[in-house]
């Protein structure tokens, strides 16, 4: 009798404890990029892997990497450069999903301005924000396309003011995200245009999912389950984009449905690069090597470590 009681109790506690509590910090306010994760949670893909997931909005990739490194959140969504630069300074973080293998960074303008190739930028005014990575990586784009940067005037503005400065013709183009500012212009009824860095030889790996290296050692199984659920969430969101956005709308009713959907469709295009193909979260060495090289050249990265120090594919396979 006692044994029976104990085994019942044991079974009970197993059910109660089988769900791992996990928090996942996004890089920014909920938008198209984050919809698949909310969809996956809504559909129970994480619960099916024994994960009790909390999704949190973020305030910039750099910020997200810091809170994950500090252990306030289990996982984070941040661009590869933030992960690499922070890790190279000794933070205990590593990417476990190379999610967007093409960067969404782009030169965005009103189509009527007529910027169709990088060469068209010469003689134009470009809105950039002090200290953001776009300005530095633009130098890579300029170098690859042999632009004369002395003919491009850089207008320094606050991030939130970039779109306004283009709309008000204080600048001819801005450096931003093909899945972001592009649609802010479109929403105002104006035809936007985007030159993606990735299409013009200056690709770096975009968004990655990161966690603490320590967790990779101590709970590899948890990470494998989380990565599997996340990849499944993206696969399913690709099949049902409308339903995915509706799941996000449940959490945040004042999202603009159409813009969010548009953004997510761009993010689907960015999942792969020329080098990576197929599997969601799988990084390609060529992309990561180029990322490291560009960061060393244009953003002062100092490291002798190989790409596998910053990203691992071990959880994506199988």
């Amino acid at each position, binding site marked *: 009798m006692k044994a029976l009681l104990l085994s019942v109790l044991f079974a009970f506690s197993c059910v109660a404890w089988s769900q791992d509590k996990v928090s996942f910090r996004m890089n920014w306010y909920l938008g198209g990029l984050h919809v698949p994760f909310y969809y996956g949670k809504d559909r129970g893909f994480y619960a099916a892997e024994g994960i009790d997931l909390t999704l*949190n*909005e973020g*305030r910039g990739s750099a910020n997200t990497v810091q*809170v994950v490194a500090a252990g*306030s*959140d289990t996982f984070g969504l941040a661009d590869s450069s933030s992960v690499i630069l922070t890790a190279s300074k000794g933070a205990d973080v590593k990417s476990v999903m190379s999610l967007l293998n093409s960067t969404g960074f782009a030169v965005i303008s009103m189509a009527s301005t007529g910027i169709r190739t990088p060469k068209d930028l010469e003689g134009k005014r470009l809105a950039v924000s002090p200290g953001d990575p776009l300005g530095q990586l633009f130098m890579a784009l300029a170098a690859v396309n042999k632009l004369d940067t002395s003919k491009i005037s850089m207008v320094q503005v606050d991030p*939130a003011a970039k779109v*306004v400065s283009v709309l008000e013709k204080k600048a001819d183009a801005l450096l931003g995200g093909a899945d972001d500012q592009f649609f802010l212009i479109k929403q*105002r009824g104006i035809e936007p245009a985007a030159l993606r860095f990735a299409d013009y030889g200056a690709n770096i790996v975009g968004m990655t999912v990161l966690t603490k290296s320590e967790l990779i050692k101590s709970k590899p199984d948890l990470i494998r389950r989380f990565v599997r659920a996340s990849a499944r969430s993206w696969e399913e969101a690709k099949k049902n984009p409308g339903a995915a956005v509706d799941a996000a709308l449940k959490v945040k009713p004042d999202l603009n449905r159409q813009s969010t959907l548009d953004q997510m469709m761009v993010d689907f295009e960015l999942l792969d690069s020329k080098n990576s193909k197929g599997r969601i979260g799988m990084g390609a060495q060529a992309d990561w090597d180029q990322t490291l090289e560009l960061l060393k050249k244009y953003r002062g990265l100092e490291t002798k470590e190989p790409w596998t120090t910053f990203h691992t594919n071990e959880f994506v396979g199988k």
Partner: protein
Amino acid sequence: MSDWLRRRAGALAIFLLFFLVWEVAVRFLGIKEYLLPPPTKIWSEFLKRSDIVMASAWVTTQEILAGYLLAVVVSVPLAMAITFSRFMENAVYPVIVFLQIIPKIAIAPLFIIWFGFGFLPKLLLVFLLSFFPIVVASIAGFKALDADIMDFARTTGAGGWRLFAKIRLPQALPQIFTGLKVGAALSATAAVVAEFVASDKGLGYLLLQYNGQLETPMVFAIVVLLSLIGLAVYYAVELLERFAIPWHVSQQRDEPGTALV
């Protein structure tokens, strides 16, 4: 109430005129909505999203109140200790003066690394910003003591506690309240700055979001709401002051004949 209305009629008229000119100018000059929306648009957009905005306002209000009350509870007794203990004055006061010089807002980003996105970093920033004015004003209040009155009170045989309750505290209150009001005004600023740096709810969070989406009417709506919250906290302190020190000159300006507005 009608008396209040009569006295404030001038101020209300100025506000109304201001909004009217704003509305007409924006519409007449065809200024784009994302640059400067007309007041009616701000109001109608606010009504559309009042649910989320009011929920966020409550979050921010809690941060303000918790941080501010903590500051009051810590700083007034601390000021007393510094005034009445030679050791505290020599050892602790210089430290406080030095700490006051540190730009508190500049260390806000550190709070994310230490405490994450939650309630604690907001509470701490509100506490830090409102703490110093209250401490400094309270110390000044406790020190500004009329020695003759104290001597006189002692001749009546009053002991330590009676001296404190009847003379020291009442004499210090006007200055303490000045500090409380400065602290109250700073507390709303502190909560918003803390939310700017890192948050996933609250008015500062919404403000940045709407700003990023170019939803300027909502940005204005939130700025107005934040001002109202700050004003409410300020007036709550002033109301308290009226009850605590009705005899003080600062409370007598509304007497008939002296009221200007």
